[in-house]
């Protein structure tokens, strides 16, 4: 009956084919004929294997997601001020953005840091900086996320030492450090070392944290950046999980028990604009991770099987044109993350297409989360879209697509080998190009850009980073170098070099060096003398 009415000319469809932004075809209708065959086994209940509906039984009825806005610019003084602003306005967790020199392992006075200090995030060179970054913030009372990868062990050492100074021992510190180096070679492109030594450092951190920091996530296995680089949702899902499995394998090879470290692995996904596809992606992620952890990696504890994630709304979806439209985009994306069961969420600010957010813009972004939390009713029951014929089918299709990628990556010899052969990088470049062609040809509409555009817009006031902050940071660094025990630093760096050439866990020598005010750049350089550096052979 319905099919006949659909054929009538007045019901002719606007497109020959509808699909998600990732190219997954969407049917004219989803009904009971596509209902899941075995819902108890494949969907289950929240807080129970396979965790499709969420990692916790009550989800947001028990506890809302953490409102955790990524922040950082200039020196630690400006960023500390922004941290306090965000906490005062109701955010419930901290998230630190570091500048490019810090991310790439260069001190602020390095020649390669010129013009880059404090621009994309906060400049941190030494423990002195880290202490001031958290001035007035009791680390025992808040969780902190740090977005840093190749130098992650060093920043973790800084954080542990700040905690120590505050009287908070490592075992009481809660938070996350990104550390996910595989996705750097794939997408974010912030590296210091070749792949193998970098993987050794990741395993060192997982091992050390599982013994010393039970409340900490030593790695945030990420898809956000893979997606931002242009991947489809399926690629984001598949490459992220495959990276995660690779870290699990390395930790098992190290001799760790899966149930000792797996509960502290966390994830970070993009929340992009194609609403239902994102929700399906998160649900598929949880189901796949649970199954593989139990069946492939022998996990016995539920905590080892449940995937928990932070989400960030898609930076690439923001437009410079008509920036207030971005409030709408961010809202939809944030709602998808919430309906998809995220544990932690960052919402982008409307002015971020061209710059880091102003206070006003980030306040609106935070209010977006608060409105979803307290006005929309979205958190009132776990997995509200569970049982939707459309969403369950999309979830299944997403899962299937991921397994197809797993098989291709396995055929190449695993993720590390796939990266060496540029496989994920090429997939991403192709997907990015395809998407751009669709936009250029107006097959895909971006409101305000290739349709509904406006002439003569007034430029939005944006955050400008004062170039004088670079000088200020270089002076801070000089003061640190002048006031520390140079002999102790040399000794600590020598010890770090010695340990790097062995199979010892590098967290202790890194902490020791950090304690005597060795700088990040000095520690990275010392390790590079042993490990070497990395240059990619790009494909486009």
């Amino acid at each position, binding site marked *: 009956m319905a099919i006949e009415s659909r054929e009538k000319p007045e019901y002719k469809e606007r497109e020959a084919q509808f699909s998600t932004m990732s190219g997954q075809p969407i049917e004219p209708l989803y009904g009971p004929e596509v209902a899941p065959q075995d819902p108890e086994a494949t969907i289950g209940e929240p807080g129970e294997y396979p965790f499709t509906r969420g990692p916790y039984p009550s989800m947001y009825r028990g506890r809302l997601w953490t409102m955790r806005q990524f922040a950082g610019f200039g020196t630690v003084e400006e960023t500390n001020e922004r941290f306090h602003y965000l906490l005062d306005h109701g955010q419930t967790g901290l998230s630190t953005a570091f500048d490019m020199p810090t991310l790439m392992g260069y001190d602020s006075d390095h020649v390669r840091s010129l013009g880059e200090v404090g621009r994309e995030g906060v400049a941190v060179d030494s423990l002195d900086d880290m202490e001031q970054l958290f001035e007035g913030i009791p680390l025992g009372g808040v969780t902190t996320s740090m977005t840093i990868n190749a130098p992650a062990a060093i920043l973790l050492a800084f954080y542990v030492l700040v905690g120590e100074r505050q009287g908070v021992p490592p075992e009481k510190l809660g938070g996350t450090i990104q550390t996910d180096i595989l996705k750097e070679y794939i997408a974010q492109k912030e590296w210091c070392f070749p792949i193998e030594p970098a993987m050794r450092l990741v395993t060192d951190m997982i091992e050390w944290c599982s013994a010393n920091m039970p409340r900490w996530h030593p790695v945030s296995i990420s898809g956000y950046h893979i997606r931002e680089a242009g991947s489809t949702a399926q690629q984001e899902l598949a490459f992220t999980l495959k990276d995660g499995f690779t870290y699990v394998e390395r930790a098992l090879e190290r001799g760790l028990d899966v149930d000792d470290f797996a509960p502290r692995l966390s994830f970070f996904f993009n929340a992009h604009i194609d609403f239902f596809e994102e929700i399906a992606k998160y649900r598929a992620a949880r189901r796949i991770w649970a199954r593989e952890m139990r069946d492939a990696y022998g996990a016995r504890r539920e905590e080892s099987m449940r995937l928990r994630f932070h989400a960030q709304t898609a930076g690439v979806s923001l437009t410079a044109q008509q920036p207030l439209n971005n409030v709408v985009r961010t809202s939809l994306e944030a709602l998808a993350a919430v309906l998809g069961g995220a544990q932690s969420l960052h919402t982008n600010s409307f002015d971020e297409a061209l710059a880091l957010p102003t206070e006003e813009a980030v306040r609106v972004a935070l209010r977006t989360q608060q409105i979803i939390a307290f006005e929309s009713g979205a958190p009132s029951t776990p997995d509200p879209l569970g049982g939707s014929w459309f969403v369950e089918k999309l979830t299944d299709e997403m899962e299937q697509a991921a397994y197809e990628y797993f098989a291709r990556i396995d055929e190449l010899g695993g993720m590390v080998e796939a990266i060496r052969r540029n496989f994920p990088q090429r997939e991403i470049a192709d997907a990015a190009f395809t998407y751009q062609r669709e936009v250029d040809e107006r097959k895909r509409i971006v409101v305000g850009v290739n349709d509904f555009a406006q002439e003569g817009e007034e430029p939005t006031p944006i955050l400008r980073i004062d170039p004088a902050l670079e000088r200020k940071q270089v002076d801070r660094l000089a003061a640190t170098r002048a006031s520390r025990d140079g002999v102790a630093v040399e000794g600590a760096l020598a010890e770090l070099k010695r340990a790097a050439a062995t199979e010892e866990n590098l967290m202790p020598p890194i902490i020791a060096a950090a304690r005597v005010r060795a700088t990040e750049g000095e520690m990275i350089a010392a390790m590079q003398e042993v490990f070497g550096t990395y240059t990619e052979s790009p494909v*486009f």
Partner: protein
Amino acid sequence: MSTATARKIRVVVAKPGLDGHDRGAKIIARALRDAGMEVIYTGLHQTPEQIAETVIQEDADAVGLSILSGAHMTLVPKVVALLAEQGVDDVLVTVGGTIPAEDIPELEKLGVAAVFTPGAGTDEIVEFIRKGAAERHDA
């Protein structure tokens, strides 16, 4: 109009500084290649010195600098100055990335022919480079 030469337009697509955002640069590189140009993509983390050297060695007609790190007001002037120092004054210089509107006039004063900001269409960029580079290498 040198139809006889059939020398392809040569474009260097470069990523100056520590910025790792290469999505746009790769798309442009591919679009230029698809449009029949010879494209040299430098890859990431290039110093201004490395970029200038590549432009000269590759006898490029145009160079596209892609920067999304906010460091453009330090890095672009450096590249332009290095090219000028080495007597290269006929290379079309374009910039792409997260460049605030208020920085564009200063970049143009330095000799940057165009700044392409978020939302710029690929075809528009390819055509601009084709026209600008053709004017230079036919001159």
